[in-house]
């Protein structure tokens, strides 16, 4: 049972504003361990970097912010101009399961003026990214069983296999133009406004850079469709097969006809899309195409959210980042990733700004997760400056 933590540091002035700082203490598994250059559970400093699982996602961000608070209090006679409330959960890497129930329980104590989100990176051109949204997600298992047990593969001339049936069904989910072919899938998509489009258009993200960064052996989907890279990545939903399991995968040969096949899948959602409705649409899609025996079971789900990046509290953060980093921050209406922003916004009714200690090669969720010490210390300075900024009257 992961503990949910709220820690309140009260302002020393009346009618102070409230900043909520959201972080999580759970991390991704460290495997594959043989691909780490250092021990994943031993924070290692080398060449101006810190290496270790969770150093960027998200323990390093949490400790940097606590450090900023302690420094501010030490330098200002333990007086705060703003209420600082840490909200720390332990299941963020598990779709923040039950966070909504905790937020509902404590909603009356969580009204705020600004939420500082868990993390953020620097771009490849060394600008601090300040984002205000996340995509949603729904994960689900797709399963088909065609017999009680695996059969001798000599029967494949007359017996359909679960492996073929599953892969045929999955192939229907995308059309020839790389668009999701599920009826209604795009109906609720919140289209970006002009400012949001303009903000992603200035991001230094190119197709060739992505291909090079990830050593891709195939063209990007947007290179095939001719659609805009940034708008597709940040504002469009997608379907992904996380993995397929069926038949024999061991060494050598086993002439078997699989009776059971399953796929772990996910849909990345954008605001207004419902995780539950999306899964139902996919189940209906299979049924309408005659795949009545295929079952779709939702496992996790989160809705997407985008902040108003023109909100004065968000602009306050952007101004401070600009001043401390001495570079124009990269303002992003949403990240392409997922997190429980939707739920936190509804509990706090506050705009959300996401920024942090990472950089373009922090390798979150992967081996060799790392940060640069200079970014870590700069983030401490940013959070201290943010606290100090509330001594001003607006």
């Amino acid at each position, binding site marked *: 049972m992961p*503990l949910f933590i709220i820690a309140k540091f009260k302002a020393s002035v009346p009618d102070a504003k409230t900043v909520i700082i959201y972080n999580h203490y759970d991390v991704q*598994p460290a495997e594959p361990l043989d691909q780490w250059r250092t021990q994943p559970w031993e*924070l290692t400093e080398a060449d101006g970097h810190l290496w270790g699982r969770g*150093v960027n996602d998200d323990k*390093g961000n949490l400790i940097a912010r606590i450090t900023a608070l302690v420094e501010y209090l030490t*330098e200002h006679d333990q007086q705060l101009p703003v209420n600082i409330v840490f909200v720390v959960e332990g299941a*963020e890497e*598990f779709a923040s399961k039950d966070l909504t129930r905790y937020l509902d*329980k404590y909603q009356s104590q969580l009204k705020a003026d600004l939420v500082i989100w868990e993390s953020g990176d620097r771009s490849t051109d060394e600008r601090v990214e300040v984002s205000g949204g996340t995509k949603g997600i729904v994960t689900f298992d797709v399963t088909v069983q065609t017999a009680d047990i695996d059969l001798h593969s000599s029967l494949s001339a007359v017996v359909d296999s679960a492996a073929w049936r599953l892969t045929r069904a999955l192939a229907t989910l995308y059309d020839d133009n790389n668009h999701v072919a599920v009826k209604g899938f795009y109906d609720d998509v919140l289209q970006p406004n002009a400012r949001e489009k303009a903000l992603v258009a200035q991001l230094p993200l190119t197709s060739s850079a992505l291909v090079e960064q990830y050593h891709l052996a195939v063209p990007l989907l947007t290179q095939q469709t001719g659609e805009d890279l940034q708008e597709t990545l940040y504002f469009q939903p997608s379907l992904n097969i996380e993995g397929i399991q069926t038949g024999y995968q061991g060494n050598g040969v086993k002439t078997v006809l699989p009776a059971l096949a399953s796929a772990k899948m996910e849909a990345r959602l954008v605001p207004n899309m419902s995780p539950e409705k999306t899964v139902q649409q996919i189940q209906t899609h299979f049924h309408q195409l005659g795949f009545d025996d295929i079952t779709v079971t939702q496992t996790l789900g989160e809705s997407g959210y985008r902040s108003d990046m023109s909100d004065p509290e968000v602009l306050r953060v952007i101004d401070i980042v600009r001043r401390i980093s001495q570079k124009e921050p990269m303002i992003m209406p949403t990240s392409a990733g997922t997190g429980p922003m939707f739920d936190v916004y509804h509990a706090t009714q506050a705009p959300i700004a996401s920024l942090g200690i990472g950089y373009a090669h922090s390798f979150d969720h992967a081996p060799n997760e790392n940060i640069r010490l200079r970014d870590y210390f700069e983030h*401490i300075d940013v959070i201290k400056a943010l606290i100090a900024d509330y001594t001003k009257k607006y």
Partner: protein
Amino acid sequence: MTQSAIRTHYLQVLKDLIAIPSVSAKHENLDEAANFITHIFESLGAEVIHDNSFYAPFHYR
């Protein structure tokens, strides 16, 4: 404490926290990490709520 001393101290705190492999996908060491963080907040004088009312079902059928 000086700024330098504070930063050095909390880098050690980060090291201690990283050493707790709190992997939610495996439901491992989550309470240990949560208690570690709760102790930090309490030692700084915060008003702290820690709650495990709701069970996150880590295993799905």
